[in-house]
């Protein structure tokens, strides 16, 4: 069994409109990949299709997580298997507190009859909130309701740290963040870094990659990867723009 998230010739449409076209990429555990490219090239589509969003139809190809077919599963099964997606626009959920929500998500991963200690749970939750410089009072607040853009993104990273996924898809987690928030969020991601964690960081800007240093950088255009390289590719992009890369 391969410890990787393997995407093979994946084609995805929204309604009748094809977005991803024979997209291929393998993310091994222990690796962090950055996926860059201008708006509308299909970066978010990739993340949503992998997570199983019902509006995205897979029209061809495969996605295997540690050798198992991901696409046959419901969104919650994919999540329980260890796939986490940090949303570009996290949803506001009225009346459901952060603490209860994460707890429900953790409980959903346990077997029938299993339980975990509330004391340990809060200890861990608070420790991670402290690390993300989140006020502990947030635990009682309704999930994302009335949060600023930065608070929402921190809350996404908090969930990721608590749920400890095997693979994470970070969809423009840097958008709308000031430099301090960006650093804190990046530290959260870096804390998970290790041989049992793989991540795909989707971003427009090189900026985030100063803090989350990727092992590989891919450039996307019109539904597929047009260029791959090491972290220096991101710098090159910054200098020459997407136009230059796509033509090169």
């Amino acid at each position, binding site marked *: 069994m391969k410890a990787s998230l393997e995407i093979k010739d994946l084609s995805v449409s929204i309604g009748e409109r094809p977005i991803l076209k024979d997209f291929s990429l393998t993310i091994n555990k222990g690796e962090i990949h950055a996926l860059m490219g201008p708006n509308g090239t299909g970066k978010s589509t990739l993340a949503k299709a992998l997570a199983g969003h019902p509006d995205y139809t897979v029209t061809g190809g495969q996605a295997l997580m540690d050798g198992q077919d991901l696409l046959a599963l419901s969104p919650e099964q994919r999540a329980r298997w260890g796939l986490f997606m940090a949303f570009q626009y996290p949803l506001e*959920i009225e009346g459901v507190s952060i603490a209860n*929500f994460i707890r429900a998500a953790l409980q959903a991963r346990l077997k029938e009859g299993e339980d975990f200690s509330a004391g340990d749970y809060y200890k861990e939750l608070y420790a991670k909130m402290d690390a993300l410089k989140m006020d502990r009072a947030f635990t009682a607040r309704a999930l994302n309701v009335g949060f600023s853009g930065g608070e929402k993104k921190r809350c996404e990273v908090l969930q990721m740290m608590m749920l400890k996924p095997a693979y994470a898809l970070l969809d423009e987690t840097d958008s709308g963040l000031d430099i301090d928030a960006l650093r804190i969020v990046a530290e959260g991601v870096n804390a998970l870094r290790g041989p049992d964690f793989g991540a795909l960081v989707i971003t427009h800007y090189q900026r985030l990659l100063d803090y989350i240093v990727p092992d590989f950088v891919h450039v996307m255009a019109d539904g597929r990867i047009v260029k791959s390289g090491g972290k220096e590719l991101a710098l090159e992009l910054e200098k020459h723009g997407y136009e230059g890369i796509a033509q090169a």
Partner: protein
Amino acid sequence: MSEGVDNWGQWFEGLRLRELKAFEKAKLPDKDDPRWRWADAAALEIPQMTPAPIPAIETLVLAKQHAAELFENPLAQIVFVDGHLAAFSALPEKWVKKGVHFLPLSQAKQEIPALVAPMLFQSIHSLGGDPFVRWHRAGNAEGVFLHVPKGVALDGLLSVVHFTHAQNATLCPHALCLLEENTQASLVQSLHSLSPSPAFVCEETEIFLGKNAALNHSGIQNLDTLVRCQRAQAAVLGEGARLRDFSTQLGAKLDRRECNVQLAGARADARLFSVGVPCKGQCFDQRTYQGHLAPDTSSDLFYKNGVLAQGRSVFSGMIDVKPKAQGTAAYQSNRNLLMSDSAQAVSMPGLEIGANDVKCSHGATDAPIDPEQLFYLRQRGIGEQQARALLLEGFLTEVIERTEMGELKAPLQKLLAQKLEGCLDGR
């Protein structure tokens, strides 16, 4: 009126007979009456009065046990089964000394008749259920009498619990609340069932708030799904008085609740909240009236229903601003979450505005669960059914939080969770 009465028993009997006569003359509910628009046909029927016999001692004990589990340390609690007293934990001496009365109605009629008589059955409801109110008053009306004398602020929860038990019993729970000037109290009235038997519950609640009096009032209806329920509540608010009213509808087959609020004194303020979760053939019918009779009064209504498979909710509300009530601020919002293809929600918000210096608005929305929210929860590994339940709970919790009645939050969430467990499987 109460001076010089030498036989109070006879006096109350006279009052009852007058109501009986009024009932016999009353025009019965009529489907062409706009106040009954879109009501279930069954809601219009007035059943035969069949009071239940006194329950067995074990039943009373069981009721007492169940009631004890409802709230943490209420200040006082009265428990009835089929309208018969099962338990009465009286107010602590401290409050009795200050002149507070919290008694079973029948006991109050005997012990302090001169206090009860002037206000009993004086409420005007007029939201369609008046024949039922007459029927209730002519029958075995039993419940609670609450009287808080001038300047007394109670600091705990007063609880009245009614259980249905006997097959086809008719119950007439009654509450009469008199809060004098500068007083404060919290009262919760709960309706539950001890056994899965059909019954008819016909309730009347009368609330009179003096100058600057503040009442937190809540009604929790968690009857068995074979029970039919018809309720009328009327509150009159004096100058600067505050009412917080919070209704929860979970049980019963058919529950019609009429809530009439008269803001009679300047600067009176009412906040009306409700959550309802009808499912599997249940219909919750809510009729409300926010009457602004005096200047600078304010009212805010916030009613939410989470309607599940084969459930039905009907909301009809009216904001009525009389020409004298300049400076009124009145709001009304009915939000329904429709959880199934067979869920039905009817909404009739209304405004009748006769003064121009006002801020008034109402809104109604019907929507399904947001698929993006559902996906977000599922992406975190929460199964679809549970995600739907969480979203529904969250939707209703928003109301509970706005009531500022913290002591009810935990018990309500427990009841709500039980309800959802029974309803959400196999939607």
